[in-house]
Each structure stands twice: as C-alpha cells, then as structure tokens.
C-alpha cells in the first residue's frame, strides 16, 4: 500500500472492520474495507442470502424550505416535483456542458424536506456547487460527517429488517421511512447498489456500530467494497469517476430515463437538448467476453474490426456469470446489442460482445 499525502478519513465503523479482520484500503480519501473473507464469498452471500456494507463514506445532504423542490428541480436532472413524501429517485447533477458532476439519490423525507445521498469522492465538490447556486427560501446543509450508513442487501434482507428493526420492509423500491431503533432516529430506505432486494439505514455516527452488530448477529455477512463493485457492475450501475465523468453526459451514459427534458430548466439542459438534436457520438455499453479471459479491468483498450475505438470504463470477472464483463463508451455507429468487439489484455485481444443491460439477472 502506498502512503498518500493526505490522511484518510475513517468510518465510525473503522474499529469494527479491523477487529473483524477486514482488509482496509484507501477509497476516495477514506480508509474502507475492501473485503473480509473474500470478494467471491461476499458477492455470493449478497446474491443468495444477505450481506451488509458500510457506506458511511457517502455524503448526506439535507435540503429544506418552501422553495426546496423548485431549487432541486433546477439543479438535478430527474423530476423532483413528482416525488411524494416517503419516495426517492435516482438523479444526476450536471455542469453547464451537460457533463456529470455526480449521480445521487434524492429522498423526500417530508413536505419541503429532502435527504440527498451523494458519492464520497464528490462530497466537497457537490456541496460547493450547491452553495454557489443557492437561491430562494432554501436551507442547505452538508451533514456528511454526522451520519453513518449501512446497506443490507440480498434476498434475506426483508426478513432481517423485520427481525432487527421490527419493521415490514416495503416491497417497492425507492421508499424512505423515518423509524426508531433503540431510541434513536433512523432512516430506512429501499435503495441499493447490488440489484438485490434490501435496504439502507442512515443513522447518527454514534449508533452505527450497534446497528452493524445487530444486523451481523441476525445473519448479514460483512461485505467490502470489492464485492460492492462486482455486484454493481453485473447490474451495469455506473460508478462516478469511472463510468461517469464531467465530459460525459447522462444521455451518453444511457441514463436518459433519469433525465426529464420536459422540465423548463435545469443546469445542463441546454447542452443536453443540443446533444439530443445533433445525436450522440458514443454510448456507454455493457460488454461480455465470449471466451476464457483474464479479469477485465478499467482502461483496457477496446477494438472493433481491428481498430481501437475506446477503452473500458469499468471491468471485472463476474463472480455470478464466471466471465469477463465491462462497460465502455462505444461510438454510436457500433453501439448495438450483438456487436462484436475485442478487449485487449496485456497485448492479447479477447473477443467480446455488446450485451443488453443488466449483464446479470436472476433468470440468467
């Protein structure tokens, strides 16, 4: 491990991870567990039973005030005004050029009150952007340091929720429920980054360890960022900084469903309207290697008809499928399901094909 210039921040669960034998790595300026017993093992636990992830590094922003809805609709791509209290949506924050600053989930916790959960690596940049654009009767607070969060994911997560929180998890995704646990306020939200059913629990940092312990005692397997990455890539969920970037728009990333171009205005809309009119140059596509190959990783060259056209933005050996998988921005002319490509690993090209997203589903 190479020492970095700035000391890493520590999760309130740091000591819990270390005493459980986790292997710690630096991620986005945070010292986080990459694995406990093994990535393959942890990946399988989430697909087949239930796993728990520390996501305390992620940022928690609070937005309140009678202009909160209108202000967020001007900053984010999805339609905030559509949310009822108790509902959430995936959305993106763009720069003026339509490029991605961050992707996040907006939870409407009450009338005129929102919780935003943003990427750890973007907390400061997001907060600065939002502060610069503050307008109207809006109170904006970056409360990331005060909150911890855990994600409990897998087919057994609803039963675990009932056992630990005494609470029937809604079957709908994108719900947010204010609840209590041992005299502490918690938010239970039905979102996640694995493709499995489950929930995330947002709580004040002081109570994180007791919630973690209760979930582990109830059968959740501790999982690290390694499994989180393979699970999300099988689902083709983008990772900001790898698959999303300030010079890539959500339309290119295939996230048009989360962009409401019928809204009168939001930052980046003019650029997206123009891009939609002229057509996209490239699209983020899912790739699956069709013969035995080394694990695919990010920044591996991608070829079509012998010509280098791109590089992988993310890659892995899919633990569920047993094949190399990746995502890459492919020129629109060739961005079609079934298109054959090649991915180069250490000078050798391996055949792959563009597949429909997600790469993994329970039926496969």
């Amino acid at each position: 491990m190479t020492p970095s210039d700035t000391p890493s921040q520590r999760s309130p669960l740091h000591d819990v991870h270390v005493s459980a034998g986790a292997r710690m790595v630096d991620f986005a300026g945070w010292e986080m567990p990459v694995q406990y017993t093994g990535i393959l093992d942890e990946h399988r636990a989430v697909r087949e039973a239930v796993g728990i992830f520390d996501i305390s590094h992620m940022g928690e922003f609070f937005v309140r005030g009678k202009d909160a809805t209108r202000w967020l609709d001007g900053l984010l791509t999805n339609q905030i005004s559509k949310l009822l209290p108790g509902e959430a949506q995936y959305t993106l924050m763009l720069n003026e050029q339509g490029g991605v600053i961050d992707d996040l989930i907006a939870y409407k916790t009450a009338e005129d009150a929102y919780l935003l959960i943003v990427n750890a690596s973007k907390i400061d940049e997001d907060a600065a952007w939002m502060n610069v654009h503050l307008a109207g009767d809006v109170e904006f607070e970056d409360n990331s340091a005060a909150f911890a969060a855990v994600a409990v994911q897998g087919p057994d997560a609803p039963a675990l929720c009932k056992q630990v929180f005494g609470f029937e998890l809604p079957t709908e995704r994108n719900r947010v429920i204010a609840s209590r646990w041992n005299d502490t306020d918690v938010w239970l939200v039905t979102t996640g980054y694995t493709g499995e059913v489950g929930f995330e629990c947002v709580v004040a940092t002081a109570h994180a360890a007791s919630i973690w312990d209760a979930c582990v005692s109830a059968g959740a397997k501790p999982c690290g960022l390694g499994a989180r990455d393979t699970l999300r890539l099988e689902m083709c969920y983008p990772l900001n900084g790898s698959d999303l970037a300030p010079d890539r728009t959500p339309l290119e990333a295939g996230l048009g469903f989360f962009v409401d171009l019928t809204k009168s205005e939001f930052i980046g809309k003019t650029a997206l309207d123009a891009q939609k009119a002229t057509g996209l140059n490239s699209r983020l596509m899912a790739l699956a290697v069709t013969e035995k190959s080394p694990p695919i990783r990010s920044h591996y060259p991608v070829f079509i008809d012998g010509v280098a056209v791109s590089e992988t933005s993310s890659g892995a050996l899919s633990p569920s499928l047993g094949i190399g998988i990746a995502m890459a921005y492919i020129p629109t002319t060739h961005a079609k399901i079934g298109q054959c490509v090649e991915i180069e690993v250490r000078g050798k090209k391996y055949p792959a094909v563009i597949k429909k997203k997600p790469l993994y589903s329970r039926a496969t």
Partner: protein
Amino acid sequence: MNVPEDLKYADSHEWIRVEGDTATVGITDHAQAELTDIVFVEPPKPGTLAEATKTIAVVESVKAASDIYSPVSGEVIEANAALDADPALLNTDPFGDGWLFKIRLSDATELDALMSPESYRAQIS
C-alpha cells in the same frame, strides 16, 4: 503462516523446490493470502527462457493483477496445466497442487542468493 522447511524463498514471495538440475516454482502461503481469491493464472509457456528476478507469470485476483518473478534463470520445462481449470489451487494448496511451473536451472549458484525458511519467515512476520 506456513513456510515449509525444505524450500528456498525469493523476497518477492516465490518458493523453489530443487531436484537435481530442475526445480519447481510457486508462490508462498503468505503471497496467496495477500493476493486473495485467485481467479486467473497466466503461466509461462514451456521453452520460455526465464531470467532470475524478472517477470515470468501473472496471477490475477478479483481485485488486481500481480506479476510473478522467476527466482532463478533457466528454461521453463512445464507449466501447471491444472491451474487453467482451477486457479484457486494457488489459494488452497500453494506448496502442492498449486505449483506454477518447472524450470531447468542454467546457473545453480543463483540458489545461494535465495532466502532460507528462517529468513523468509522473518521477512513476512
């Protein structure tokens, strides 16, 4: 951590078992534990001329690719074909069925530069 007494060790975490003018090479128990779940092995082709301390193979875990260095110089005479179907042998039996390749030594004096079990144990403790 298992460090068998009958082997010599490289500081880059390979072991070598010498039998006459040939030797078997693998990675140590410590190395496999550090690398975690090994999912792919690119062993050297027979006939490859290995140079001591130079890259000779690649092993990949879910998270990262790692170079393997040859502890000695010589001609590779066999690669472990079983690793193709079951790369996890490097994790489960690093000193046995998880061996990487066999080599014909070109300069037996190179063995003197390798570490004893005691020195290697000290390095990883």
